[in-house]
């Protein structure tokens, strides 16, 4: 996913300043059209509030401190859940990629669990954990686990065996072989897993927060729905979009830093 994205960017003409801004033209144009449609009455504000109203609602929530608090709570849940689920997925991916025994022992089980949609567990999770923090963390961790597990495993299994043979001939110990050959070779695939996982992370959190929470962005949106505050509902959705973009950009920066050797990431 990530590699193809970068390859398909045409790099014929490179105007650095314009390059950074060009990606925002479409979102800004959509907002402008939306504003015009609302102001002219083409779209009734009961269906969709104008962007200016949404911004105003955001400003009010910002002043009251409610917005920052809810974003922070959601962000915290997402990160902790991601770290737990991603960490365990990475560990299993490593173990099963490197050890036949471990793979035979756990892979079948994991594949079975993978085919259960994790959001289907929400009723069970609420019964187990109530609407406590642990319920959300559990669901996010579970959702994030599989893309990272599968891609780490795939990355390690597809490291060029010729390079591994080369490493052994040149006297690398097991640890060195992992550090210098296997892990760097698996890294592009691991990043694909991370980016899939980031998408699933937000998705899971939103659903969990709208169903079982007393704080967070999803909760804020549900509360607003109760009181017909449609501007706040739209605001929450926009914030989700921005947070998703932020997570994706962060993973791209990491990719560029660690995969500088990869032809797809080299400046031409």
């Amino acid at each position: 996913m990530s590699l193809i994205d970068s390859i398909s960017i045409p790099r014929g003409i490179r105007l650095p300043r314009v390059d950074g801004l060009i990606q925002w033209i479409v979102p800004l144009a959509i907002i402008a059209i939306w504003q015009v449609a609302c102001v002219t009455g083409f779209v009734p504000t009961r269906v969709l509030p104008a962007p200016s109203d949404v911004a105003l609602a955001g400003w009010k929530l910002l002043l009251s401190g409610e917005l920052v608090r809810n974003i922070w709570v959601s962000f915290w849940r997402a990160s902790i859940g991601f770290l737990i689920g991603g960490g365990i997925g990475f560990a299993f991916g490593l173990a099963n990629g490197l050890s036949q025994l471990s793979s035979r022992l756990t892979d079948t089980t994991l594949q079975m669990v993978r085919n259960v949609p994790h959001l289907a567990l929400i009723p069970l999770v609420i019964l187990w954990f109530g609407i406590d923090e642990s319920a959300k963390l559990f669901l996010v961790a579970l959702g994030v686990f599989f893309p990272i597990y599968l891609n780490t495993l795939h990355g390690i299994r597809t490291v060029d065996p010729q390079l591994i043979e080369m490493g052994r001939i040149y006297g690398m110990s097991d640890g060195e072989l992992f550090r210098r050959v296997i892990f760097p070779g698996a890294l592009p695939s691991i990043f694909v897993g991370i980016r899939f996982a980031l998408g699933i992370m937000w998705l899971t959190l939103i659903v969990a927060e709208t169903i079982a929470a007393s704080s967070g962005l999803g909760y804020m949106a549900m509360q607003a729905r109760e009181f017909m505050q449609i501007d706040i509902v739209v605001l929450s959705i926009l914030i989700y979009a921005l947070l998703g973009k932020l997570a994706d950009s962060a993973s791209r920066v990491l990719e560029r830093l660690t995969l500088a050797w990869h032809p797809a990431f080299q400046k031409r």
Partner: protein
Amino acid sequence: MQTALRTSLPETELASRASFAPHARVVREERPLQTTGLPLSIRGLRKSFGDNEVLRGIDLHIPAGQFVAIVGKSGCGKSTLLRLIAGLEKIDSGSISFGGETRAEDIRVMFQEPRLLPWARVLANVEVGLGRDRASADAHARAEQALTEVGLADKRDQWPSVLSGGQKQRVALGRALVSRPRVLAFDEPLGALDALTRISMQRLLERVWRDQGFTAILVTHDVSEAVALADRVLVIDEGRIAHDVLVNADRPRERGSAGLANLEGSILNHLLSADDRT
């Protein structure tokens, strides 16, 4: 022969070649003067993969510092022999002995693929070749020296992905040379290169072999390459050494000379007549 060579080579190359031309005359056996290479003795070597007996009893002695080429049809067992010598496969029966104690760094292999680490810069890739000495203080300096020997000192900070096929293979050669090996095994290292790059790589191989004096074992399917580079050509057929041919031409050898062409023709005949029998 020497005069023909002088007219066909550019000035710079001529100077470097002229410096060792006198030695070649004195030492009739075409070996470098100071040999650091190891002799190699193979007795009754057999190897099977499942029911397929690939090597059926190889007996061979290679004197220290000799340049041996191994040719044969594909599937004749020549690569397997090389992998056994390099310790990449287990021996079924028989023995391979080098004259004396060897360290892992003494025997190096160069493959048809460069097998460079794409995520390591050129210099770091060469350092891999130091084996256990990687951590030593002079690792950088030694790697840089090896890179200079293969003529790529200016590429030290590049990623392998930006190099051409020939340059990658030169980095792989530098990596094999950096530990100063005493036996260097080549498994069709030039097989994937275009004709001109091949010729310049052959010259490079010959030069480093002369400079360093290791025992060289080259597996190739190109008989003209074998004849141009080696002191001795072994023809392997059906898991045995079918012919053992000494090449007594002076070095540096002139490409396409009548003597070498004759030799090449007769070796090719051996290979093809073996083909007719089956």
